[in-house]
């Protein structure tokens, strides 16, 4: 058997316990194959256990374990780093809990916090750093740690309560769907729920829109005074959050 054929058989055994593949590897190999399969699955279980503590607390250990087993069967690991394995788990939970959107949203928060924790370093600007900005032309660089997810439930409140060891609120659907920001400020990964207006504004700024164009859009939507005030408020919030890391 060629090395490639053997390695394909090992993969088939690890992913789906393919008995034909095990037979080709060798009858004497059965005890060893069991060790390797246990190692493979145990690593993925431990990875998801570590990454989604609050999801486990929310849906219960038994349901969480069932979700993990489904995910491992559905999504074989593909990256050299286990850090990447949590990325697809929220999608599996969305499939398993179609009527409980907060489950996948909680999972997304935990996944995104983990990713932000090790994202690229960048030093946040503070308000004083903007003293000499040309406001007609200024564009802002947003922290590379930022991720933006959809939010249709009170998952952020549930997550905060679970993390604090408090009794979480019952799941609720938001009156207006919004978004969640997840980023790292210094060495601390953080999140914040935002509305659609701020979501669109932040996406536009991140894609290179000038702040003056953002202000113009806000004025068109909300009138001169309210539009300018809203854009200013958002910029102040972003600076305070540590989201702005450069100005061009």
């Amino acid at each position, binding site marked *: 058997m*060629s*090395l*490639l054929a*053997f*390695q*394909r058989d*090992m*993969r088939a055994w*690890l*992913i789906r316990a393919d008995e034909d593949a095990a037979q080709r*590897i*060798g009858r*004497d*190999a059965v*005890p*060893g*194959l*069991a*060790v*390797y399969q246990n*190692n*493979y699955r145990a*690593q*993925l279980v431990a990875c998801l256990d570590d990454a989604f503590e609050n999801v486990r607390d929310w849906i219960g250990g038994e349901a969480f374990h069932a979700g993990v087993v489904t995910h491992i069967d559905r999504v*074989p*690991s*593909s*990256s*050299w*780093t*286990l*850090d990447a394995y949590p990325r697809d788990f929220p999608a599996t939970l969305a499939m398993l809990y179609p009527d409980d959107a907060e489950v996948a949203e909680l999972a997304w928060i935990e996944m995104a916090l983990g990713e*932000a*924790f*090790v*994202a*690229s*370093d960048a030093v946040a600007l503070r308000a004083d750093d903007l003293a000499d900005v040309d406001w007609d032309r200024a564009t802002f660089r947003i922290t*590379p740690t930022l991720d933006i997810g959809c939010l249709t439930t009170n998952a952020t409140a549930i997550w905060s309560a679970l993390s604090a060891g408090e009794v979480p609120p019952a799941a609720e659907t938001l009156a207006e769907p919004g978004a969640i920001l997840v980023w*790292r400020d210094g*060495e601390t990964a953080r999140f914040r729920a935002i509305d659609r207006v701020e979501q669109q504004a932040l996406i536009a700024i991140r894609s290179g829109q000038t702040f003056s164009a953002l202000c113009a859009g806000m004025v068109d939507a909300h009138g001169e005074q309210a539009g300018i005030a809203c854009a200013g408020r958002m910029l102040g919030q972003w600076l305070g959050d540590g989201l702005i890391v450069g100005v061009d």
Partner: protein
Amino acid sequence: MTVFAGFGLGLRRPHYDEFLAGRVAVDFVEVISENFMVDGGRPRRILRDIRALYPVALHGVSMSIGSADGIDGFYLARLRSLVDAIDPLFVSDHLSWTRIEGFSSHDLLPLPYTEEALAIVCANIDRAQDALGRAMLIENPSTYIDFAPADMTECEFLTQVCARTGCGLLLDVNNVFVSASNHGFDPVAYLDALPHDRVRQIHLAGHSQGTDLLIDTHDRPVPQSVWDLYAHVLPRLGAVATMIERDDDIPPLADLLTELDGARRIAGRTLRETA
């Protein structure tokens, strides 16, 4: 290839603060490369701070030098970036494979010791050493499948790998014991047959009894059987860096340092006897 004699420990999260305080009596620390092959954040900052205090060896678990479809170039680029950032004592990985055709097992899977596998492993190590700009150390694995009869023994395979690629060896004495027990070969004969001049680093660890096989669990102290093998092989080696490798049920740092003193005592005795 770097020559370094000393005694170290694997850096594990529960001990970060004690190591960062800079007063731990070790000559080097070893870190799992993949834990620090991230873009930024606290892990990279901690490694920079640790490197300012101790020599650091990088020990990988995911290079997959035995993959028939080659090594992941992105992985090598990431590792090179880490190597450039911390200038490690050694860069090591295992005689095993973890990935094939987009699938990753996150486990050190065994290789049949055939001429075909030898050619693939050597080509992969050549590529890795070119990408990293330095010689690597390759660690003998614990294995749970015996491919005998193969074209050569593990020792013969490792000897050929060293000769063809110029790499060194990271001798894991516990792995020798575990594989010898699982496959019924003599661990002393294995140690005697190694290319001793290529050994630069030694791992000492504990193992557990599984249902049918010994398992390389790193979750308990180094057993006497492994200390005995260490004492046997040490006089045959040149300058080596010895360390305790503990990955699970991690005890207080003081316990590991006491265990490391056992390695120091054996090394001291060896020096006196050969003087």
